């Protein structure tokens, strides 16, 4: 009997050990890592992958990571390896390189505001019913790129010692304020435990999550590495140490904020030998910086895995090379030295890129731009009584709209890669245009055939352009000719970009041809300010609550009201959106020449998990899913 008991004991002990081993090895097999990291683990330089990943890593799924309307039918499981080669024009900074690494706190797939917002760096969130309090959950076990855990200490440090510190943040941005307004009260932070914190606003701010989930808003909004940055902050740093650092950087004691910023990750800041030392949560971290190259290698503590447990990203290395001119960029692309390019792949070289597709081993994929192409926005406050009388007549705006030969513009300027607008009537009808102008009272013409204004003098339309985008000048040249064809004396002037914006805000332009995002989907949160931007006195009227500037006509006020309801601080409302769109069509405050303009994105033919429709920038935001076939 005793022997039986001992036997059972021994067997169960052995079994339990066996089962124990199995469960450990089962856990070990749950996550996989890149070979280059596995080697480091073997030699003891890195902890194993389960200890590097948070307890609940983000599992990459199709709609998780800025994937547009179902074009990428399946998110393939990729292979590890490879180097992604990019190019950049400004020293240490390039949009490709920048967007590739950004990790927002929350994720909003694509630019459609109606899609649900999910956690990215943060595990999740809860909104209070009164929309004033937002509770956020950090991922337990999430670590910085140097292995130090991320906790609410980092959140508190960022809030108290960076945002509320007037040396570091002289002016607190609108996304920390109630109702997402620049004059709103600053939010309050409450730390509940190591992994939970709460942001509270004085007024209901439902648009908060929309704002911080925008694809270019990095996690640095709320989380900064305290363990690294505190050595540069007078509140925590050893006085002598800090003094030494300031002296060697040739800074005075009161300039400590400069030193602090040099070492921290600021939005859109170019990479410097100082700020690449700051720990991050990005998929790749900078390991080498030369005057002409920026080299990234994978972050061993990156918090995302794919559906079968492979730690992302798939690609090991990213190298971005500086190009001094767009010609050099073109040569690099057609000789196959670039794996991913958006910004520097200019449209005017599109035929050349297509020609060398096979030889260079890449594909040119036409994808949409995140911003509107050039438009004609009317300045209703331009100080000329003749202009005022004419531009406020809807028939004038409709006539100009009918006079534009959009198909010609699409073919000549956009290589056929744009569409007729939906926000304004797209019909091309010169007869209707002429009829409307005649009906308006502009039917009298001078000896050269130009229409006379109500004051009996030749009516003149002055279009001013600035070449900040490649399509501005060619498109407006065609439009100017179209207007001349209906008898309107039109001139086209090109000026420098900063001079242009000076003149615009000085109310010196009849029409505004710079980009305008009043009709761009993702920027609808700022539709009101985009509506008033071309008419500076309306802008003043709204921002001074009616005391200064000029009061807009009733139809404009109604349009503005609708725009404000899909403006900052509001959740998506399809009915209001359609109303706004319809009213826009009826009143034509801005003439869109074309919409959904496309641009060729250069992608190495061997890259997979590449989606091919939607806005091109999305591809850059979801680089961790890319892999070499």
């Amino acid at each position, binding site marked *: 009997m005793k022997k039986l008991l001992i036997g059972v004991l021994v067997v169960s002990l052995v079994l339990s050990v066996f089962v124990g081993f199995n469960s450990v090895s089962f856990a070990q097999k749950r996550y996989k890592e890149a070979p280059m990291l596995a080697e480091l683990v073997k030699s003891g330089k890195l902890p194993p992958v389960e200890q590097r990943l948070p307890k609940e890593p983000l599992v990459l799924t199709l709609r998780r990571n800025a994937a547009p309307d179902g074009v990428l039918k399946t998110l393939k499981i990729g292979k590890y390896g490879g180097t992604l080669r990019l190019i950049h024009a400004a020293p240490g900074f390039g949009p490709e390189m920048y967007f590739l690494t950004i990790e927002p706190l929350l994720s909003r797939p694509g630019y459609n505001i109606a899609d649900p917002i999910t956690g990215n760096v943060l595990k999740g969130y809860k909104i209070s019913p009164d929309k004033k309090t937002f509770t956020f959950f950090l991922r337990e076990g999430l670590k910085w790129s140097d292995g130090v855990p991320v906790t609410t200490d980092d959140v508190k440090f960022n809030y108290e010692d960076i945002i509320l510190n007037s040396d570091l943040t002289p002016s607190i941005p609108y996304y920390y304020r109630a109702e997402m307004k620049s004059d709103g009260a600053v939010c309050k932070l409450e730390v509940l435990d190591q992994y939970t914190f709460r942001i509270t606003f004085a007024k209901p701010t439902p648009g908060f999550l929309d704002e911080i989930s925008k694809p270019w808003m990095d996690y640095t909004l709320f989380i900064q590495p305290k363990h690294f940055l505190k050595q540069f902050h007078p509140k925590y740093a050893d006085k002598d140490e800090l003094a030494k650092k300031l002296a060697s950087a040739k800074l005075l004691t009161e300039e400590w904020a400069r030193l602090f910023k040099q070492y921290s990750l600021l939005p859109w800041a170019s990479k410097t030998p100082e700020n690449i030392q700051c720990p991050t949560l990005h998929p790749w971290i900078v390991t080498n910086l030369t005057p002409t190259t920026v080299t990234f290698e994978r972050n061993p503590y990156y918090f995302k895995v794919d559906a079968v447990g492979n730690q992302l990203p798939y690609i090991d290395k990213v190298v971005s090379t500086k190009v*001094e001119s767009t*010609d050099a960029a073109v040569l690099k692309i057609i000789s196959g030295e670039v794996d991913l390019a958006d910004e520097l792949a200019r449209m005017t070289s599109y035929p050349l890129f297509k020609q060398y597709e096979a030889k260079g081993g890449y594909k040119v994929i036409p994808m949409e731009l995140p911003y509107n192409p050039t438009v004609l926005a009317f300045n209703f406050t331009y100080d000329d009584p003749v202009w005022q009388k004419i531009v406020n007549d809807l028939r004038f705006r409709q006539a100009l709209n009918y006079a534009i030969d959009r198909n010609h513009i699409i073919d000549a300027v956009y290589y056929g890669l744009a569409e007729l607008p939906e926000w304004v009537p797209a019909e091309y009808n010169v007869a209707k245009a002429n009829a409307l102008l005649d009906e308006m009272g502009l039917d009298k013409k001078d000896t050269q055939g130009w229409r006379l204004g109500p004051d009996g003098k030749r009516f003149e339309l002055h279009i001013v352009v600035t070449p900040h985008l490649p399509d501005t000048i060619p498109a407006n040249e065609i439009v100017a000719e179209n207007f001349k064809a209906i008898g309107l004396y039109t001139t086209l002037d090109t000026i420098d970009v900063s001079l242009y914006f000076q003149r615009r805000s000085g109310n010196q332009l009849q029409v505004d041809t710079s980009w305008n995002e009043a009709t761009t989907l993702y*920027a609808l949160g700022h539709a009101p300010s985009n509506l008033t931007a071309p008419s500076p006195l309306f802008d003043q009227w709204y921002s001074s609550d009616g005391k200064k500037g000029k009061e807009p006509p009733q139809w404009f006020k109604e349009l503005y009201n609708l725009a404000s309801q899909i403006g900052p601080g509001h959740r998506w409302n399809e009915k209001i959106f359609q109303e706004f769109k319809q009213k826009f069509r009826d009143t034509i405050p801005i003439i869109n020449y074309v919409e959904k303009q496309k641009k060729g994105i250069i992608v190495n033919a061997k890259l997979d998990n590449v989606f091919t429709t939607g806005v091109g920038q999305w591809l850059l935001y979801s680089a961790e899913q890319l892999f070499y076939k």
Partner: protein
Amino acid sequence: MLASYIIRRVITFIPILFIISILSYLIIELPPGDYLTTYIIQLRSQGMEVSQEQILNLTRYYGLDKPIYVRYAKWIWNIIAHGNFGWSFRFNRPVSAVIWERIPLTMTISGLTLLFTYIVAIPIGIFSAVKQYSVFDYVFTFLGFIGFAVPSFLLALLVLWISFRYFGVAVTGLFSPNYAEAPWSLMKVVDMLKRVWVPIFVVGFGGMTGLIRVTRASLLDELHKQYVIVARAKGVPEQKLIFKYPLRVAINPLISSVGWLLPGIVSGESIAAIVLNLPTTGPVLLSALLSQDTYLAGSFILILSFLVLLGNLISDLLLAVLDPRIRFEGVSE
């Protein structure tokens, strides 16, 4: 006496440099807006929004909210008292770091180009003068003028295109992609030498003409002088004759232009460097001016102006050494 001359010359540097610094600072600040306005417009054109508060923060961070004379005074004082040339907005680093890390490569390429130009042009000039109106003379004059007339960037583009289209070699920078980010090694130097002929050729080709024509003209002047005929009559061999007598006199105009070489070596060729994607100082100055990176552009211009003044002083001294006819007042024979 020589020393007092040098000292006097150096003292005149100071007011000249002062005036230059004021002028260049003013001109750089002249276009409306500042570094931030163009930067923000650039960001917006890439689809990123910048809030008003961030603009304000950046303005204060860069010190752009202070009036122009305050900024100028601070800048000049920093240079004189601390040798600190200010901060480059675009590079996000101290100006001295930006310029200094590009100097070695710039001087190497410029130095090699200079060597190439002189070694090729002067013999051609001599030969052209000696064999005046021969086929050689006409051919090389013709080629020289073409090289002078064709803009360097166009020549660079042509070389790039021909190299890519017909030889399959993409000269996309000073180094091939493999070596671009690697630290310096023998292989990297070899890699660079394989490609450095492009900028040397492009820049040198244009610069040769001036040298050829000046050498040719000044030598021609001398060749018909009496002492040459006398030497020839006395039986001095032709080659020795040319090199020992007229050439020395003919070199005079070349030496007086040596002063311009100094700033040229440091600033390098800007336009061709941009097309050929070279990490030298020339493109840095151009982009600094375009983006109104005031301190970088201003400091650069100041340094170049100093080098011009220094170079002129050096060439004046060299001339005095070379030509015994030139002496300073108060220096006895």
